[in-house]
């Protein structure tokens, strides 16, 4: 068993979904996504949580250019694979009440995107990583631009150009690293073993950093994000925020810092400051939002800022926090966007100020909303808490003031999230909200699964932390040893 089966099944599934009827497309897509989840579970069952790469695969692809189809799963990749394979079926389930035009194309694109995402998370070859990176972008562009809201054309071309621009610079960085390797290979281990000068590393650092910062997005590269999230169809928003932005975070851990340690040390302070500014800035803007989906979009920038800060502090705890927080954030943000999808589908608006009193008419819905909200604001015993605690600890080790400012995200988040809940759910029901029907069927199932995951991971996070622990420790120690040497 190699990782190839995990990468090719979604592609095959996408092609098969194109063959079925539009009405049956969602069932077929869900079927394949669940099989993929089962496969991931099988991989997890046989996974030994040490620092090694497992289920490896290494085939010649363009050998004369040093390109190999090299992929494998270590602890870090395993968490990302779990995140992707877990969220895709959930996201497909959230669309069960939607009737998309030309549905088979829609679901085929989602499955194709899953293949791209999994390629990114398992690639051990620079070229393969880049191809996966772009292969995830094309489908989401079409998903957002074909099934999105009114301004979708203008907003999505902005989104596409923004991210494509970033990734082209990353491609230059990858080719540059390849040219420096003695045996001319795109192999990531060859990249790790390079010893470049500080100037070279600074160039490489920025080439990668811009791509990742745009994807996450980090302040000030975030301007595409709120519009794109708001205009995308809800499943697209979930794919973007739940999984795709993790490509950037994963990239920082795997490709940015280990490839250019000295370059990173040189700019560490700056990127820390950018991350912390992002946390505060996005939280402040979130206060002012009246559109629920937009509010969640900004809160996502704040959360990602904290994850980035935890990684840039580069301690085992910080990176471990980032790992579990990526999983938790993925689950929570999908839940949050689904909540808003449910609300906007029933009320035909996302304007918070027009709502109120939904809790009285839809008790199940209000419980689910509350649990997801508590996970998002990182209440202890929910999944958000473990990650944010470790992240803040990592930042604290780097600089106490950064930790203090970044810690504001928890307070700010609690304020704007609880205020949103109060305005939407509590008080007296008005004309608009009286007709709100409670969740049922697939909605209940999705929200139920999400709530269970939030509490389960919150109460007992150890199994998840254990998966990535050895790999993270190993990576952090290797790179930190280079730091002690000035990064070379």
């Amino acid at each position: 068993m190699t990782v190839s089966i995990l990468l090719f099944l979604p592609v095959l599934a996408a092609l098969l979904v194109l063959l079925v009827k539009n009405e049956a497309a969602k069932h077929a897509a869900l079927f394949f996504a669940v099989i993929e989840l089962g496969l991931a579970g099988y991989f997890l069952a046989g996974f030994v949580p040490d620092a090694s790469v497992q289920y490896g695969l290494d085939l010649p692809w363009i050998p004369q250019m040093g390109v190999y189809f090299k992929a494998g799963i270590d602890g870090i990749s395993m968490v990302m694979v779990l995140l992707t394979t877990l969220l895709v079926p959930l996201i497909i389930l959230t669309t069960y009440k939607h009737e998309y035009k030309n549905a088979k194309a829609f679901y085929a694109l989602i499955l194709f995107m899953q293949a791209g995402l999994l390629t990114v998370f398992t690639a051990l070859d620079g070229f393969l990583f880049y191809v996966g990176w772009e292969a995830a972008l094309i489908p989401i562009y079409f998903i957002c631009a074909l099934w999105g809201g009114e301004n979708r054309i203008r907003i999505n071309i902005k989104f596409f150009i923004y991210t494509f621009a970033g990734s082209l610079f990353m491609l230059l960085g990858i080719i540059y690293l390849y040219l420096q390797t003695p045996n001319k290979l795109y192999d990531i281990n060859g990249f790790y073993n390079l010893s470049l000068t500080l100037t070279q590393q600074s160039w490489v650092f920025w080439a990668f950093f811009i791509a990742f910062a745009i994807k996450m997005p980090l302040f000030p590269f975030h301007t595409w994000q709120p519009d794109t999230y708001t205009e995308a169809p809800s499943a697209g928003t979930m794919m973007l925020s739940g999984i795709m932005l993790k490509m950037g975070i994963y990239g920082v851990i795997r490709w940015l810092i280990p490839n250019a340690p000295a370059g990173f040390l040189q700019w560490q302070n700056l990127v820390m400051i950018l991350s912390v500014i992002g946390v505060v800035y996005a939280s402040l803007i979130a206060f002012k939002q009246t559109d629920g989906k937009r509010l969640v979009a900004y809160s996502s920038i704040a959360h990602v800022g904290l994850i980035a800060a935890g990684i840039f502090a580069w301690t085992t705890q910080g990176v471990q926090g980032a790992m579990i927080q990526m999983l938790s954030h993925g689950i929570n943000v999908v839940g949050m966007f689904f909540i808003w999808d449910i609300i906007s589908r029933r009320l035909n608006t996302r304007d918070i100020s027009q709502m109120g009193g939904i809790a009285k008419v839809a008790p199940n819905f209000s419980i689910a909303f509350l649990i997801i909200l508590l996970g998002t604001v990182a209440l202890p015993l929910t999944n958000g808490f473990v990650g944010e605690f470790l992240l803040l600890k990592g930042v604290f080790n780097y600089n106490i003031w950064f930790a203090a400012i970044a810690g504001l995200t928890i307070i700010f988040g609690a304020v704007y999230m609880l205020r949103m809940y109060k305005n939407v759910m509590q008080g007296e029901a008005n004309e608009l909200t009286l007709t709100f029907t409670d969740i049922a069927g697939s909605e209940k199932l999705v929200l139920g699964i999400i709530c269970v995951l939030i509490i389960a991971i919150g109460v007992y996070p150890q199994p998840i932390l254990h998966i990535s622990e050895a790999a993270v420790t190993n990576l952090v120690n290797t790179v930190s040893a280079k730091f002690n040497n000035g990064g070379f």
Partner: protein
Amino acid sequence: MTTLIIISVLPIILLYLGLYKVQKALLPVTIIGLLIALGAAVAQWNDNAVPIYSGMMLFNNFSVAFSVVSIVSTILILLLSKGYFEKISNHIAEYYAIILFSLAGIIVMVSYHNLVMMFIGIEIMSVSLYILAGIRKSDFASNEAALKYFLMGAFSTGFLLFGIALIYGSSGSFDLDTIREWVVTHPRNIDPMFYTGILLIIVGLCFKVGAAPFHFWTPDVYEGAPSLITLFMSTVVKVAGFAAFLRLFAACFSTIAAFWTPVLLAITIATLFIGNITALYQQSFKRMMAFSSISHAGYLLFAIVALGAGSANSIFVYATAYSIASIIAFGALILVRQQTGSDNFEGFNGLAKKNPFLALVLTVSMLSLAGIPLTAGFIGKFFMFSGVLAQYNTWLVIVAVVNAIISIFYYFRVIIAMYFRTAERAEVEVPAYYKFVLGFSAIATIVIGIYPSFISTLI
């Protein structure tokens, strides 16, 4: 050599067929003839070629590879021409014959071993094109295109010939090997005349491949000529131009690259920006393709700027990717134009609803031209970028990246028009042979994009 003979005799047969009014047989005979020529070319693969006819020609793997690309592209283009020339005039046999004469010139251009043969090849190709550009006799635009192309072409030929003469004056030979030896044995005392010769040849060749600042003829000629001829000019002819360019510079001038690289570097950067930025402002799809072809000439120049062992390969891969993507684009344009009567972007509005197949293949083509991974265009750009970065021309690659980003705007305009804009329209009728050519090209684009090894290891 057999290839060249077949392609030279074929048009004469066609002219006789035309004389005896066997219109129906023209296309099949042409295609079969070209397939035989293709077979003859492939048979010469790895044939340990030596220069023949007193060192006039050399059919090495380089020639075979580029001959094959040119012949295959021509076959695809001619398949699209079924029923196309009939609408323009009654003398169809002549058009097939002239295209094939032009192709014969192209075969000479990719396999010369002597500057005289290079010149003759370029002239055979160009004279045929001057006629082809003006085949719509009663159409002003077509006439303008032909006249402009002829005047500018004749002018640039002068430069080229003068350059060749100066090279001959210094080195005493037209033979590529002899010139190279002369350059190598006179490292310190190459006279200015030789350098001037190189510059003049650069001017002449840059004109032929449509690189800035010698590109002014391109948009008008491309727009005025019938779409199929434009397609032929922007693919086969351009590729052959680059093959000739590379063959000369790799064979003779590689040791004095320090002299001409800065000149070509400036030309490359100008070509990229002028092509891309002007393409942004076009309302006509055909004109956009004309300007984008200028920018692609810029990317192709990369391989000559960063001259090295991989250059031939890079140009081969890039040119193949670019040719097949252009064939799709122009094929779709011809069909859409037949329905809407205009070349504008608006003509593509809402195409995806009525013609999902046409929209899909055109999307593949645009993604390939824009250089998105999993298409052939990306592999081409990847090879070019790698080559230039290997020579530490970091700034040139950054310029190229900026241009690749700009190009997204105009290539995606077509995709946006087809998928996201709506318009009342009827279904465009796609004839079977169009389906074949477009489908084949789209599949080839994706196959090369996913597994490029089978063409990227050829040369």
